[in-house]
């Protein structure tokens, strides 16, 4: 049933391109660029579950990524866990924390919710900066020996890349399955008009909490992989609000509420970012451009690229979700 839908295979195709492209010519630079694109896709498509489906702007989604990184690095460095187990355990731990945060902040709506999510991020950063088992403000360094089980540093980078591509694929499938499910219908109803949804019988508190927890899991796993790759994590890197803002720009650029939009937006944004960073005139200018881009999207194309594409070719709706 679900296999017959073209979009199911389009996600597979995207993963295949990510998997094969850097192999041709053993292109490490392309791999690094795609790795960052994959991380952006993971962040943006999970953010989209809250932002696009449920209509709640999560400005602090990077807190999941950072906390996931901390759990994973700590479990590996101090307790000697393997990478996969540590990253997944981090995902569960962060989802549980998201549930606890959600109990407090999911009662808020609109701008108040957005502000509260920034508060959560800043609060967690302040806590971690003073939490000695996690190295306080200096953070945690991992020994490079931890790369040995993955076949040495050079090979480990490839392994991490493929794991991130897998998490990216799971993110897109998760977004997709939520969208076509009854749960997703409830979230979309909440996004349109929360009070009307409740009167129609949508269990709004439970659905919002589930969406918030679900949107925390995969970014946390990705954070674990990402910070293991650098063998180093510190609070200012882990909870950098810039990443959050970029995730919002990406989701809006691609088209919030669509499954494919965040992926498209992430790829284009990463290309643009790479170009800006290496360009002589625009170097260090990248965030200004991101801000301007967000402004232009919100003002002139609230549906993002997907909205524009749908408007031009309405039939596309049946192929790209």
């Amino acid at each position, binding site marked *: 049933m679900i296999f017959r839908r073209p979009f199911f295979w389009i996600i597979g195709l995207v993963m295949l391109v990510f998997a094969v492209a850097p192999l041709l010519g053993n292109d490490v630079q392309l791999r690094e660029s795609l790795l960052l694109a994959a991380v952006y896709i993971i962040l943006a498509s999970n953010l989209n579950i809250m932002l696009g489906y449920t209509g709640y702007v999560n400005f602090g989604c990077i807190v999941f990524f950072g906390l996931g990184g901390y759990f994973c690095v700590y479990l590996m460095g101090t307790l000697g866990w393997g990478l996969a187990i540590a990253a997944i355990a981090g995902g569960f731990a962060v989802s549980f924390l998201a549930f606890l945060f959600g109990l407090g902040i999911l009662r808020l709506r609109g701008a108040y919710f957005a502000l509260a999510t920034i508060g959560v991020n800043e609060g967690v950063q302040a806590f971690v900066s003073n939490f000695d088992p996690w190295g306080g403000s200096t953070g945690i360094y991992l020994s490079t020996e931890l790369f040995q089980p993955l076949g040495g540093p050079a090979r480990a980078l490839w392994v991490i890349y493929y794991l991130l591509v897998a998490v990216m694929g799971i993110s897109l499938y998760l977004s997709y399955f939520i969208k076509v*499910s*009854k749960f997703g*219908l*409830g979230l*979309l*109803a909440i996004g*349109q*008009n929360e*009070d*009307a*949804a*409740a*009167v*129609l*019988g*949508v*269990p*709004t*508190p439970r659905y919002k909490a589930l969406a918030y927890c679900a949107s925390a899991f995969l970014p946390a796993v990705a954070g674990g992989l990402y910070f293991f790759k650098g063998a180093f994590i510190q609070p200012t890197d882990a909870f950098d609000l810039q990443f959050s803002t970029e995730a919002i720009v990406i989701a809006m650029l691609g088209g919030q509420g669509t499954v494919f939009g965040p992926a498209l937006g992430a790829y284009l944004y990463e290309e643009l970012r790479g170009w800006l960073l290496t360009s002589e005139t625009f170097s260090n200018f990248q965030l200004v451009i991101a801000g301007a881009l967000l402004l232009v999207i919100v003002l002139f194309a609230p549906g993002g690229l997907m909205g524009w594409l749908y408007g031009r070719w309405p039939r596309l709706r049946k192929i790209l979700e």
Partner: protein
Amino acid sequence: MSAVLAVERLSKRFGGLMAVNQLSFTVEEHEILGLIGPNGAGKSTVFNLVNGVFPPSQGTVHFRGADITGMQPFRVARAGLARTHQIVQPLTEMTVLENCIVGACFGRENLPLGKARATAREAAVFVGLEQRLDTPAGQLTIAGKKRLELARALAAEPTLLLLDEVLAGLNPTEVTHMIGVIRRIRERGITILMIEHLMHAIMSLSDRIVVLNSGQLLATGTPQEVANDPAVIEAYLGDPKLAEQLQGDG
């Protein structure tokens, strides 16, 4: 006959205003009960108290024998009590059919998506929206949105339906059509509690009428009895035309 809905000594205070004051009434199975009263009498507040949009300050609400006082709206909906809004609340970017699917999915039957689609389509066709199934709800006319409110509530397959001024803002042809729809809903065995300002409609549809004034029960009885009740006529005297109309129709 047993009471589907029993409201007892219900009160709601908004600051210094007693919006509903010690109100008691029952809705019997399979009947259409009309709830009327001058503007600001507290009719919509009663609906909001019954379906849990806000909790009452005092009093109880029983639905089919179970206490639902202060229960959250989505639990009340799941129990089988659906409502429409006086100010229409469409899920604007979803299509008419999708709006109804939400109703069917999360209503009394708690249907899975596949079955909900069939029920939703049936409800939309029932109210006369068969030409508009794929139209985004935001693009409907007011009459269309009123029908959508009704279709969405019906798709939930409720035991009790609360209708909040579904006829307001419709032209005479649309009113006639809607009255027919409401009659047919009752024939399906659904009990109806309705608020309506259109006197000829409520007088001809209702089995019994409850009259509210300043949040208090003013009168109750058949349309005939209520229309001839001096207290009711007095309450409406601020609007003599309406009082006249009330008597003329009764």
